């Protein structure tokens, strides 16, 4: 009896191990091939440098240590592009998340009728690919095509001073609804009992929003905030499209455009080093936001 029992257990353990391998190997191998290997390869590439024998000799790749990283630190257009997207993010991310939060709170409040319609209307732009959204807004900003001639005839929305904010508007337009939906989903998982107690105490909608709802959706705000930071530092499609509408968008307008134009020179190793620096910067920034907000909510 005992022997049979352990035999059953053992065979089950074996079948579990087989099943576990079956479940994990497809994702595991693809993750290694298309995530870990490229990351390691980028790091390896970034440590190489090209040397020539004499002026016209054949180019050979040799180990260059941190040569490329020194070149990255001396590359002014790259840092200028990082500064530009940081400025973009400092303004655009709070506006986008603020609007998303207000809309989510309104959808969740009893003040609004027809919330199903509004939810879908706000979310619709998320179904528009960035490239298409940028092309569309590029037309809307163009003085001779725009329906908003009152605006486009007084302000050149595609000039060097304004184009960054014109792009910010495109990003905001696409992603507000997505962020709103994530915050709204978090609002829906708040237990109703909490509101009942607050209402008995005579709290109105504003009081409930500020004292109960907003603190409870902070985790969702952190999540959307981190995704927005990653998105901002990785800006590519929108500015690339805007190059056909505005001369003010250069090939080094955002870090990813700088990397792309560096890679097509081609200076693969320098581009790889820039990618590594940018990925690290993205990671450090998202991680810092995560830690800071965690400490604040823990208090």
């Amino acid at each position, binding site marked *: 009896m005992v022997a049979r029992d352990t035999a059953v257990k053992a065979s*089950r353990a074996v*079948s579990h191990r087989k*099943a*576990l391998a*079956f*479940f*994990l190997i*497809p*994702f595991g191998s*693809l993750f290694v091939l*298309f*995530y870990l290997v490229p*990351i390691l*390869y*980028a790091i390896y*590439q970034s440590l190489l440098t090209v040397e020539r024998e004499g002026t016209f000799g054949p180019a050979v790749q040799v180990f260059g240590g941190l040569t490329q990283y020194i070149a990255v630190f001396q590359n002014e257009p790259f840092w200028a592009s990082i500064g530009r997207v940081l400025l973009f993010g400092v303004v655009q991310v709070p506006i986008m998340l603020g609007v998303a939060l*207000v*809309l989510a709170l309104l959808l969740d*409040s009893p*003040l*609004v009728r027809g919330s199903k319609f509004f*939810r*879908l*209307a706000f979310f*619709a*732009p*998320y*179904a*528009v*690919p960035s*490239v*298409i959204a940028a*092309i*569309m807004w590029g*037309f809307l900003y163009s003085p001779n*095509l725009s*329906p908003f001639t009152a605006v486009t005839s007084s302000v050149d929305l595609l000039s060097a001073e304004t184009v960054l904010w014109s792009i910010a508007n495109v990003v905001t*337009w696409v992603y507000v*609804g997505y962020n709103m939906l994530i915050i709204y*989903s978090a609002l829906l998982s708040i237990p*109703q*009992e909490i509101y*009942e107690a607050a*209402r008995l105490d005579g709290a109105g*909608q504003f009081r409930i929003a500020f004292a109960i709802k907003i603190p409870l959706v902070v985790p*969702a705000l952190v999540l959307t905030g*981190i995704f927005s930071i*990653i998105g901002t530092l990785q800006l*590519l*499609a929108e500015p*690339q*499209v805007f*190059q056909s509408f505005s001369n003010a968008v250069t090939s080094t307008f955002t870090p*990813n455009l700088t990397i*792309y134009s560096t890679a097509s020179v081609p200076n*693969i190793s320098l581009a*790889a080093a820039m990618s590594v620096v940018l*990925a690290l910067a993205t990671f450090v920034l*998202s*991680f810092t936001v995560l830690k800071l907000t965690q400490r604040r909510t823990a208090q």
Partner: protein
Amino acid sequence: MTVSTETRALRTQGLKKPARDGGIRESAVSRTVAMAVMIVATLYFLTPLWWLLVASTKTREDFTTTNPLWFADFALFDNIAALVTYRDGVFLQWLGNSALYAGVGALLATLIAAMAGYAIAKYTFRGRETLFNVILGGVLVPATALALPLFLLFSQAGATNTIWAVLLPSLVSPFGVYLSRIYAAASVPDEIIEAARIDGAGEVRTFFTVATRLMAPALVTIFLFQFVAIWNNFFLPLIMLRDESLFPVTLGLYVWNTQVSQIPDIRALVVIGSLLSIIPLIVTFLALQRFWQSGLANGGLK
């Protein structure tokens, strides 16, 4: 079960508004302000789409000379005909490519991520948390940072400018593993798995017949968001593909848009092409909204 938990369950299932419990009547002023905000926001979000719809119906002459927000001579079908016949119907091929990359890619990515997430949620094994944390770290790695090294690796394998160069990297969804782990832990009870084992079902069969059904809202959510991510992906096809016949629709329209200054007529095709390329996504979202909305509400954010 109290009434309020029932309401809550109902709300999270179908995202219903709460039954108004009638206690305090909100003032007419706040109600009006709230509705005004909603209407202004609706105008902001929908006007560009309305413009695109209207612009797509116009003849080339009317496009610049008539009111951009209202219809003129209705030439929608002529424009569509011009679009799908231009250069031997290359636009339709782009749409088909997008559907292939996004449809097949998202379907396989969802299955692969669900299997991994389910295994991490339901089996204890050594290194489980480490594995999960490495995958979570993958969520923070931006796709554009991977594109360049992927290009270098694929070119060493001689596989750039093929379907595989775009399709294979899209099969990995770390966020999908995260979501299915959370969802499987919450919605697939251990007792059901035990019961299936007693009935003699193997582990794999239990996953496909029992677990996938219980995880359905999360699976739809993962599928849709991966579908959108692949459909919208621009950088990877941009650097991987040279051959126009392999382009997804976003890359194709981007290339056309850069040619507008040399070939002005192409602008009309960019406009109608943009409209046609977003319709499939909007339809998919609307058709599946019940599933992905409850998947988001229940799974992702606890």
